[in-house]
């Protein structure tokens, strides 16, 4: 391949518009929750082991740092879910224009921020 061909997608030099930021966050949250599944499986395994295990999982969850990590994973799941639903809506041909894309990105951010805050309130 000719390496000297002009590039039109040098990511590090492009200022990201809002839909690009929500798109990259969708990817980052995906990679993050893939790792987070390990933490969730560990909590599930503890909590189902025995009544003692259940109590110890509850104790772990009461530690501020663990709770923060679990909230971060839940936040990642919520964001990935909301952005994914927007993806499915766009697959059906809704909101594919420039202004539709910007509205969609704002909706994704708004809905997920509200849900993530509510999840935090519920966890604490």
């Amino acid at each position, binding site marked *: 391949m000719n390496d000297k061909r002009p590039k039109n997608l040098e990511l590090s030099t492009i200022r990201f518009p809002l839909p690009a930021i929500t798109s990259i966050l969708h990817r980052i949250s995906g990679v993050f929750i893939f790792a987070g599944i390990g933490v969730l*499986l560990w909590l599930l395994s503890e909590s*189902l082991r025995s*009544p003692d295990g259940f109590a110890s999982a509850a104790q772990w969850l009461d530690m501020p740092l663990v709770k923060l990590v679990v909230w971060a994973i839940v936040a990642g799941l919520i964001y990935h879910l909301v952005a994914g639903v927007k*993806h499915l809506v766009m697959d059906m041909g809704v909101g594919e224009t420039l202004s539709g894309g910007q509205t969609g990105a704002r909706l994704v951010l708004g809905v997920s921020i509200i849900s993530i805050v509510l999840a935090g309130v519920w966890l604490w």
Partner: protein
Amino acid sequence: MVTNVTSFGRSGLYDWVVQRFTAVYLAVYFVGLLGFLVWTPELTFDTWRALFGATWMRIASLAALFSICAHAWIGLWTVATDYLTADLLGSKATFLRIAFQSICVIVMFIYLVWGIQILWGV
């Protein structure tokens, strides 16, 4: 540049469909689980164990685990082939990408076996 050999279904269209079907299933599974947690006033060990000990929940959770693996394979393939490239990493890019994808597949396998052990150990 050969990048398609590590994709999930050897075809973009097939991956696209699998990505969406697993996405819808995982959305239903996680929202359902969240609903259970929110609407159970005081979660006890007995309720929790009864839920995950039920055959339908084991099957639903196993399906969720399979879905996570397929969904993550496709998503991480997309991320890896977009960012672990020769443009960004030079000549070692392919080696690094294959190493990254191998680790991901090993982690998926661990999640799957571990999850089965948890579900059928209840």
